[in-house]
């Protein structure tokens, strides 16, 4: 939220005889010229040109959020029309409008405030004539006579200045509080309080897949109260460690997979999480175009050196064991979240302006204490141990087609004191590395009959692997529903001579699919080139090697990576 984005707030009323009139404005002179000494020289825009059409619009447009751009300002109002017998002409029309600059990117947030204000004031007016009583007391409209020559809205010199008018005070408080604190709480009377807050608009969260690995970017465990009453969320939180995939987390926490995915989606929405891929030494990583940013930026390099360093006690026995994810898991635990990205953390805090969100307590979760203390101790000596050149050399030597295992073998001498998993993870999080995913696509002209025995055995193991059978069933259902649509158009789309053979083949493929459905091993459906190996392995609960073996068994399949 930009600071002090609200340039003005004004209250407009439609009078059955005197027309539309700006009754209150903050700051003075921002909307209509004012004689007050502190007033702005010139109004922000020419209100007279728009007041009748856009501030007090046709009733068709009342009770809707109405924004209008004029003179590089955006006037956001929520015109309200109350139809009741007690008003003259049975109508009471007003608009409580905010002015922001036209270029404010997230003006929708202000729109929501305007809408809420409009509705609240409508309620207040309907309940206790909050707005009309003030007018009946006779100050607002009568002043018009005195300053009549001045025309529209010249009256505030005599009535507007604070003191009496509650509505004016309201304008003032809303403007100041929203600009300074992005929220406000204004007691109106015994039973009513106006609570407003500017909520930044957030991007809708992406879909979460079972094979993604969530990493917390803030320490949720440091919050004193549970962050949510969502039981799933509370259960899965301890298992989010930057290593386990969503499916694995669901398994560990004994939660439903789809609920788990939803819970993680929530965390993503609020920016507490980033999503990674499943780390393995068989995976391939390569630099993206942003590697240049890493090379140039000293601070990132330092952050990296701090992050990837193996804690002191392990120095000496540093050579990472290949494939020893287990050993890392033992220490990865909770400290994963502690130092991932200070930048994203600060970003998060800058966005959350609620007081309760500020001041994160230090991480007191049991496991991480020891580590963080140790980290702090060894900070000075060891951050020098990993030179920037080493990091650059390591990162730039990653490339397509080179598995991490082989890369480690190539660079063993440079990797002293470096946690390979963290090294990779850091690059992924910062965006200068990417995982090269493997895909498989069935191209065969002759699909051999799938070996049923092995398939079945695997299918049972798959079912065992997943705790939640029902969940799996739903997943499968969703996929199978799509299969025919994927297969059918392709079958139709072969105009060339081989078409008939192809079509026949498709029939066979279809039959294979249905066969597999019965057997509970829908491997073929993953062979359309849209599912990466991570996903296949997670869905089937098999290791990559097993999957690769199966795929070879299916027939002519091309494996490619991107």
């Amino acid at each position, binding site marked *: 939220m930009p600071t002090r984005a609200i340039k003005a707030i004004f209250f407009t009323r439609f009078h059955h005889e005197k027309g539309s009139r700006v009754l209150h404005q903050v700051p003075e002179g921002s909307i209509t010229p004012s004689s007050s000494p502190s007033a702005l020289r010139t109004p922000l825009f020419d209100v007279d040109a728009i007041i009748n059409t856009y501030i007090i619009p046709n009733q068709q447009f009342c009770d809707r959020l109405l924004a209008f751009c004029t003179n590089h300002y955006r006037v956001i109002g929520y015109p309200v029309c109350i139809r009741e017998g007690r008003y003259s002409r049975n109508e009471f029309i007003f608009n409580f409008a905010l002015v922001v600059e036209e270029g404010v990117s997230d003006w*929708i947030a202000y729109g929501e405030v305007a809408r809420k204000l409009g509705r609240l004031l409508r309620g207040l007016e309907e309940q206790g004539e909050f707005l009309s009583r003030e007018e009946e007391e006779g100050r607002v409209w009568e002043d018009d006579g005195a300053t009549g020559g001045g025309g529209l809205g010249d009256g505030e010199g005599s009535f507007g200045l604070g003191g009496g008018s509650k509505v004016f005070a309201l304008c003032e408080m809303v403007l100041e509080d929203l600009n300074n604190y992005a929220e406000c709480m204004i007691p109106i009377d015994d039973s009513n309080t106006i609570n407003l807050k500017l909520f930044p608009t957030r991007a809708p969260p992406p879909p979460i897949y079972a094979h993604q690995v969530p990493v917390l970017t803030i320490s949720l465990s440091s919050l004193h109260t549970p962050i949510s009453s969502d039981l799933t969320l509370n259960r899965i939180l301890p298992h989010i460690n930057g290593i386990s995939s969503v499916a694995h987390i669901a398994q560990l926490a004994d939660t439903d997979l789809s609920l788990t995915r939803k819970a993680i*989606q929530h965390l993503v929405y609020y920016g507490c999480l980033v999503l990674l891929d499943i780390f393995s030494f068989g995976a391939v990583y390569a630099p993206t175009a*942003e590697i240049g940013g890493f090379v140039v930026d000293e601070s990132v390099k330092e952050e990296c050196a701090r992050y990837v360093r193996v804690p002191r006690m392990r120095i000496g026995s540093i050579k990472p064991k290949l494939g020893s994810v287990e050993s890392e898991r033992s220490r990865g635990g909770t400290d994963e979240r502690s130092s991932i990205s200070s930048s994203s953390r600060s970003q998060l805090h800058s966005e959350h302006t609620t007081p309760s969100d500020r001041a994160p307590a230090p991480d007191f979760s049991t496991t991480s204490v020891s580590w963080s203390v140790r980290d702090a101790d060894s900070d000075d000596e060891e951050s020098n141990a990993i030179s920037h050149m080493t990091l650059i050399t390591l990162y730039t030597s990653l490339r397509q087609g080179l598995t991490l295992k082989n890369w480690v073998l190539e660079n063993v001498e440079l990797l002293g004191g470096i946690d390979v998993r963290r090294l990779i993870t850091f690059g992924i999080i910062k965006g200068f590395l990417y995982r090269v995913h493997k895909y498989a696509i069935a191209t065969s002209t002759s699909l051999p009959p799938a070996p049923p025995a092995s398939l079945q055995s695997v299918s049972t193991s798959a079912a065992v692997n997943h705790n939640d059978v029902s969940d799996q069933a*739903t997943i499968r259902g*969703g996929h199978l529903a799509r299969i025919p649509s994927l297969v059918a158009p392709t079958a139709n789309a072969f105009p*060339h001579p081989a078409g008939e053979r192809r079509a026949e083949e498709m029939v066979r493929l279809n039959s294979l699919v249905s066969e597999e459905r019965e057997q509970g091993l829908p491997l073929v459906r993953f062979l359309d080139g*849209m599912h990466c190996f991570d996903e296949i392995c997670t869905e089937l609960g098999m290791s990559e090697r097993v999957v690769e073996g199966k795929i070879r068994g299916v027939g002519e399949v091309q494996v490619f990576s991107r």
Partner: protein
Amino acid sequence: MALPLPPASNLHAILLVTQSRSLGPRLVFHYPPISPSAAALAANKAPVWFAKEATTSSGGSESSSSDWDSSTENEGGDDDAEVGSRTSGGRGSSWRTGASHRDKDKYRPGAGGVWGRSIDEEDGDLEVENGSKASGNGKQKGGIHDWDTVLGFKVDALEKILCPGKAFNKRRFEMGVESVVFVGAPMFVREDGLWKKRKKRRKRSAEDALLANLKIGEAKKGDGSPEEDRSGSTSTEPFVYPEGFEPGYGHGLISGAPSGAVSEAGSDARSNSTADNNPDMTMFNVVFVLNPPALEYQLRVKDMYDNISRKYAKALKYEQARFQYVWKESKRIIDIKQRAKENGEALTATWQKILAISPLAKSIAILFEAISNDKIAHVHFDATFNTSFQIPQADSTPYLPNALEPQMPGLWLTTSNVVIEDESDAPMTQHAALLLLEDPETLIKDLEGDNKNNTAALAFYIRNIIPTKSLLKISNKHNIVAQDMEYIASHLVYWRRARLIAPLHPRDTYIVSPNADLSNLQAAIPAYASRFSTLPTLPKMLSMLSGTPKPYRSFIPTAEHREAYMDILAWLMRGGWVTQLRTFAWVRVSPEIKAQVAADMEREERVKKADDLRREAASDNGSMTESLLSDKRSSLLSASTIRPATPLRRTRRDRDGEEEGTETNAALSPLVAATGWRGSPARASSSDAGSTSSARTTIALSSGAQQRPISPAPPSHSRDPQQQQRPQRPSPLHLKTTSPSRPQPFSPTSPSLTATAAAGPPQSPPPSPQSFAPSLILNPQKANSTEARWLEKIGQTFAHDADLREHWPMLLRHLDGRHAIEDISPREGLKRKRVAALFNGVREGGWLVVVRHW
């Protein structure tokens, strides 16, 4: 703005509103006839990029498929390469959500859902919306008779609110109702009752009688003028269209005899405009109704206004000025509507009639259909004037999407289109090749349909364009003027017919693009197979390109296959399946070099000291202060004179090069920056920044300043929003603007320290390599004096290789991690092989940190 957003106009209706003395504000025409209600649009906030967001949040069990899975459906054949069609799927799905909302409305009584009602069969031809609507509860026999509401608003209220005051003349009119926004560019009549400033040398009112000749002349002149208008008025204009290459190909150089209809219309108009100097219509406003997602609001609205609303309104105004086009058409439409309403005719039938009769209505319909599907609209206003409109789309991105920020799959992933800021190189246009996104013959046929005159010439150009040869080479070979070539190129690129790429070459390396759109794969396989039936299949090709990166050459079995394989490569490139892997490098300075340089400097310092002492001794009455001064001066002098000869020469050459560069830049940059081939329009600002800063560097250099180059202040406006937005993504494009010659952390060698060290006891031990750490020189062009000495020292190690030694300064220019090594050969005019040899020479010496990415 970092990731280019997928194109999505979010356009849902177009309204034409006029203000006239006789009729007041009047909603003349709206399209589509059955407009969605504003309430339904407001409810439809589904974001564009997660087309299946709804399913994940509700069902949650559907576990996989890309975010764009819907785009497979409407794919077929070759056009998977076409930018527009790739995304129409995503759009289509958002339509669908919209429709479902509308459907909901239908069953909610009185929810402003007048539009939920059925449409009778008549609308089949019109294809107003998708079919879901038509299957309604058709009770009224004649279809919809609702003449009084549009978008769920009463027409009279709407027409009033869409007629802004005169202050909005030629300004942006933007009004939001809930999350629906109305964007328009209102056009007002001038005070003198004309729509256009009268040209002095033409006195048209008097010369009604001189018909034919004058009219032709006018038509011609007129045709030019909106172009002038546009190109002159704003900088956002793509480029000045060369004669004969205007949008839509058909525009301009109209055949001699205007058709009867036009002359009729023309004379009519003339008599009209001469008759009353007090025109009836005072304002017209074409309003575009959008419902952009909140986070994309500003961008989408701006795109629509800049590219469509304003240009379309200008075109209409031009027509209005010529022969009262808008008002006459409006009266006609109002008339038809009035009669239909009185006769109780159905809305859709009436709309069909209007579209058949009124070219204005037709043009609005065409505009809507094309723009709402993110296509290019070819609009024919009348027989003599037609033009095209589009919202330009990004054709490449350097950013890779991640799980949290997906972007358009299939978008070409490359840094070759990224404008390097603080950089004065001439744009690579001449050295780039043009990759046609359609088959040349299809393209030519398209052109023939549009334009009769230049087809032959254009076809000649297009047939000769091949993606393996740079434009320069093609124009040399076929004797085409280079400028013509560039015009054609920028034209084709702007109108989404082609892309500028680095010429495809078998020696270059290509990988499967991490941004390839796999959901297209199933459709692409047969398309590929029908084209390259005897060659490896598409999956096979992808598989081959997935391994350890190798030059493409190594996949070509024999020399005879070369051409076919290059065709395959072009095809893959077109579809965004592959991207070139480019090489970037920085110079790595080893501790040994640093130690040597430090020792050298110390020695020099000592020598100088000795000199000074000698001089002091020699001068009898040399005062202390004077010697100190001279000392200082000499040290200053030495700092600059000692500077190696090579950098000096280099700078001079640079200067020449850069001046040349800026010159061409000045000539080309408006063209290139605006055509948008360097990426998204939002990047235009950064390219601006780039050119200004480059100008600055040129000035600094040409003023002969030898001091440490002060890096130009980073153009903060282009960089800050980026960083605020996504601090976790260090982007090379933006990080690069940070001062490249930042103070090095290893202070022992920084000049100030060495100076003080030298000022101290002269007999300090010679520095040993152990006391230095290797480091990178981030930008050799802007090396400080110490860095320059290191570089020179490294250059000296190539003693055995005279060639390398000679080209070292040239190579240095490209060793900053931003210039691809692959670009050296065309830029410097060296043979590819030679460059490779030079580069490998340096690399083998261990002087480089090399990284490869796109």
